[in-house]
């Protein structure tokens, strides 16, 4: 529970937990870039993944999940952290952390593609896996598993 990295974040963490030996902190969306920059300065030189969970119909609906990794280049102690931000509303928006780690780029595009969460300040926020003209966000819980009809010829 008393994770030194989260303690260093001070008032930025809203909730802290440690289940299965995995330290998790919930951060206010307005603080995400500051929190990530502070953690990068503490050795978290790598972002392993960014993803989201849709808790429809709960509001705020989306949890944006960041998996951080401290990778010592010459061997040493590896540490992992999880940060979460809750966003919701008509047009869920959060600041991009690509300014902290370039590696967040494609993961944020994937979350945008699959959940329709906008990352402000992202250098190239376009769909990454679905076709450009696709309507809807496939991993949202209210998107049908069977999909919908899509005409590839018309949506070049």
């Amino acid at each position: 529970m008393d994770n030194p990295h989260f303690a260093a974040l001070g008032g930025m963490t809203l909730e802290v937990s440690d289940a299965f030996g995995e330290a998790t902190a919930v951060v206010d969306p307005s603080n995400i870039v500051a929190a990530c920059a502070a953690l990068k300065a503490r050795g978290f030189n790598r972002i392993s993944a960014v993803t989201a969970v849709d808790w429809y119909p709960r509001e705020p609906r989306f949890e944006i999940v960041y998996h951080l990794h401290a990778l010592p280049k010459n061997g040493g102690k590896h540490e992992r952290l999880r940060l979460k931000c809750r966003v919701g509303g008509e047009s869920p928006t959060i600041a991009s952390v690509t300014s902290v780690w370039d590696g967040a780029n494609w993961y944020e595009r994937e979350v945008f593609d699959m959940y329709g969460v906008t990352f402000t300040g992202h250098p190239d926020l376009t769909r990454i896996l679905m076709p450009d003209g696709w309507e809807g966000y496939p991993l949202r819980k209210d998107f049908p598993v069977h999909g919908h009809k899509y005409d590839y010829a018309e949506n070049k």
Partner: protein
Amino acid sequence: MPETLAAEPVVDLDESLADALRPKRLMTLNMGPQHPSTHGVLRILLELDGETIVGAKPDLGYLHTGIEKQMETKNWQQAVTLTDRVDYLSNLSNNLCYALAVEKLLGIEIPAKAQWTRVMLAELTRINSHLVWLGTHALDIGAMSVFFYCFREREEVLKLFEMFSGQRMMTSYIRIGGLALDHPRGWDKRVKAFVDSFPSKVDQYENLLDNNPIWKQRTIGVGFLEVDRMIDLGVTGPMIRAAGVNWDVRKDEPYSSYDKFNFKVPVLHNNDVFDRYKVRMIELRESCSIAKQALEGMPEGDFQADAPKVVLPDREKMKTQMESLIYHFKIVTEGFSVPAGEVYQPVESPRGEIAYYIVSDGGNKPYRVHMRTPSFGNLQALPALFDQKLIADSIATLGSMDFVLGDTDR
């Protein structure tokens, strides 16, 4: 006469010729989606200034099949079959990663025999994947015969998988709670024959390539990128180990009793295509040694955990004991429930860090499964790897990344 020949117009012509040859504008070249060197369907938009690449934009999604969405509709055990199909060259690594993550949520203990079998099969998977990589990578660069040698041994590995699981590729052999089946009859002789003969086969591959002048010219010093940039972009696996980073999930965050095995993590420092090849060659030998250790020290015991709510009961017990019959009925009809929570489980796949982030809401189906796949992370470094390099080196660089597009697109 010499005076007239040396007259001014000749010099003018030279200059105008040089001017005409100088590229005035960039050329956009569309590579793929059906380009053979991408080993799948990947499109790369290249911006060329003459022979030099000044911009590369990968376009993915051609193999997107919505596996993560489908997983939310299957019950926990059924979803194992989808993990095979993510990365079709390292099926058992994906099986293992998913099973470990769900077992962490369930809090069940896996017997030693199942753990060691998992290690053995995961290492055979690494051999399988690296052999396909080596064969196709050498083929891309022009060394055709390596491909046939590699596929000769790969066939043996696939036969072993078939022996264990009944399937050559879509094994689904590692299940939540242990293994799908007990060891098949005569498995140890077959595995022993393979691990005993394999190191000499690796010598054969190295004989074909290590001193081959064309291979060396096309790989040494090609595909360099600063190591900090690689870490920042999320590159993992053999690529990062060829850049001098000593990181292997098997060593640093051991799972499935990898800490009981004796193996080296190869680390090289030149960070070029040749070193990525060398790292994988050393890994082939190490994987073979781990598989051999697992074979020789295989513990006795059960192949499934003692968790009646999760693991199907023995047929004999199911027919004779009321309690087992009820468990059998419940598991077959509705599956089992997993306590609410979330886990992130990393595993070292042949390509790098594969990690499943699984969220359970307490139901009999996964609420959310995110696959952090190594190919996706590694491919993200492609624009940086290509930048300001020659187009002729792009194929060697692409091959050295060893991505599987099923793994990037999911």
